[in-house]
């Protein structure tokens, strides 16, 4: 966890972003997708980044997830300065510290529900068989997919796929889980069920959940909501707390 020391108080954070900027080039034109964004996210929190399309939510999640690198600024994720990780180190870091939940579920179609959850343990972390089985079965029970474990992704519904994706993201015991528009392809009822699953997982495994959305009904489920507009952080709202920005 990132450490921030201020006035003799040491606080531990899952993510510390300090003036993080990200530029893209489209042809000869440089586009600033994020502009000097700074924030801290505490462990086991349930955080949402909201904002309209093009506000920089996905870019920010990609930076936190070590899928991309900031152009400027400093970004500490799980106590690691991710700016200096090379390709292989980034992959290894992601495999050991970060779980991903995608908008389109992104399950591997040739693997069953059980095998999809098993994949990161087997192919990324090389966890022994007994331990693998224990963790997968616990997660299958937790997301309510135990009876569907032998089905392939094309044999289950969208909500079920996302629950499998949550289990896959959590099976490696990551320090944080990143979910980019996790409910965008789900109806509201299923979306709330998925969010409930995520919260339940957070409570059970003390994992930090960071997700992006522009669905205001879903936003209400988050404990802390950061608002992004045109690549800038324009607000922070803690549930039951005061609104900043």
């Amino acid at each position, binding site marked *: 966890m990132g450490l921030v020391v201020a006035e003799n108080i040491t606080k531990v954070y899952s993510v510390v972003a300090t003036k993080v900027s990200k530029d893209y080039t489209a042809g000869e034109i440089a586009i600033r997708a994020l502009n000097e964004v700074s924030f801290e996210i505490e462990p086991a929190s349930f955080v949402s980044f909201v904002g309209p399309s093009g506000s920089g939510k996905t870019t920010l999640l*990609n930076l936190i*997830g070590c*899928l*991309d690198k900031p152009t400027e600024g400093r970004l500490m994720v799980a106590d690691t300065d991710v700016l200096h990780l090379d*390709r*292989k180190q980034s*992959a*290894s*870091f*992601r*495999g*050991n510290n*970060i*779980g*991903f939940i*995608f908008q*389109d579920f*992104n399950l*591997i*179609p*040739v*693997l069953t529900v059980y095998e999809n959850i098993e*994949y*990161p343990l*087997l*192919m*990324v*972390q090389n966890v022994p068989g007994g331990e693998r089985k224990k963790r997968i079965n616990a997660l299958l029970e937790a997301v309510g997919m135990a009876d569907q474990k032998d089905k392939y992704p094309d044999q289950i519904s969208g909500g079920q796929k996302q629950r499998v994706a949550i289990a*896959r*993201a959590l099976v*490696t015991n990551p320090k944080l889980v990143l979910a980019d528009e996790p409910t965008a392809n789900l109806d509201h009822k299923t979306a709330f069920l998925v969010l409930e699953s995520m919260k339940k997982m957070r409570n059970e495994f003390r994992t930090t959940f960071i997700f992006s959305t522009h669905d205001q009904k879903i936003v209400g489920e988050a404990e802390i909501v950061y608002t992004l507009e045109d690549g800038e952080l324009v607000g922070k709202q803690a549930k039951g707390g005061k609104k900043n920005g």
Partner: protein
Amino acid sequence: MGNLFKIAIRNLRRYKRRTLLTASLVTIGVVFVLLFISISGSFKNMMIGQMTDSMLGHLEVHRKGYLASIDNLPLNLNLKMQAYKKLEGILNQQPEVEAFSPRIKFGGMFSTFVETTNIRLNGVYPDRELKTVPLLPSRVTNGTKKTLEKGEIWIPELMSKSMKVNIGDTVVIIATNKDGSVNGKQFKVAGVLESITGPGGRDGYIHIEDAMEVLRMEEMEVSEVAVRLKDFSRLHSFSDKLEGLLSGELNKQGKPIYEVHTWEKLSPFYNIARMIDIMAFFIKLMLIAIVLTSIMNVMIMAVYERIREIGTIAAIGTLPGKILSMFVVEGFSLGLLGVIAGNVLGMIIIVIVNLSKITFSFGRQTGLILSAKVAPMDMLVVSLIVIVISVIASLQPAFKASRMEPIKALRHV
């Protein structure tokens, strides 16, 4: 590794039609190569067998310089008795040697009292010659096959026909010895020899003692010694060994007495055999091209179709090396599938070819039955070629997949 295979096989099953088509292409390639190797190889081996087992022997030992003048059958380049005895002693001690046969080769006149023509003759010990070239009796189309008695002659078929000489007829052989004196001897025709392609394929045979008598040799002088080995596959190693053993035997001028030649140096058919090998090589090259293009095509498609999947597995922490392995294993599995199917189908077709008893002709020999055989080593080599090329063909797409930026791959539509 097992998991990589599991994922690879499931991905192959995912695109059944494409997998089937590509595997079929590899299978057809393997079948064609195996068929070509088995049929051409059997043809080649049969021909080599005909050459060595009915005429030449596996290798021959001559006096140094004899082979260069072999067309003249020079009597002055025969091995003297002492040199032959030394050679005989050495050959008797070699466990690889099954049999050997000394020959006196000479040219002479063949007369039926009505007509006269020239003839090339081999003076042999019939029992030793038949042990060295066991298929020789099979060439005797007419007459006694088992042996050749003193005073008897086996004549070439062409001579029998053109001069109307039949079994039991009396003929005269006239020859000039190395001193220049001429001598003649009557023989009874005991057999007519079917001609075969190559030098010596139209020679006559008489007993070695008759040859000595015609040539007025007081002491036997040998033109060549034909050697048959127990294991033909050890021909070259034994030839080298024998050359080594004989290289120490020097004449008064300090030069080697003997020269050793395998059948390859004695028969022009060796060039045909080499051509068959070259053709087999080019057929293998074609197989390589088929496998390379078909597997590479499929793997490029597989990578292109699975870009988002690659992005997903890369995002969740799969190392680039493992992504590379996944696609290489997929290409390997596809090649393996083609190899297994190709070998099985190839063997079935070879069995069918053999059951069909297809006949062919070689030179004047007709009705030779095609006996297609493929050596396990050939199957192994073909299989290895396909598998190695499958892996090589997968490398470029696999490398591309492993180098993909997960963020770009995840955005791919």
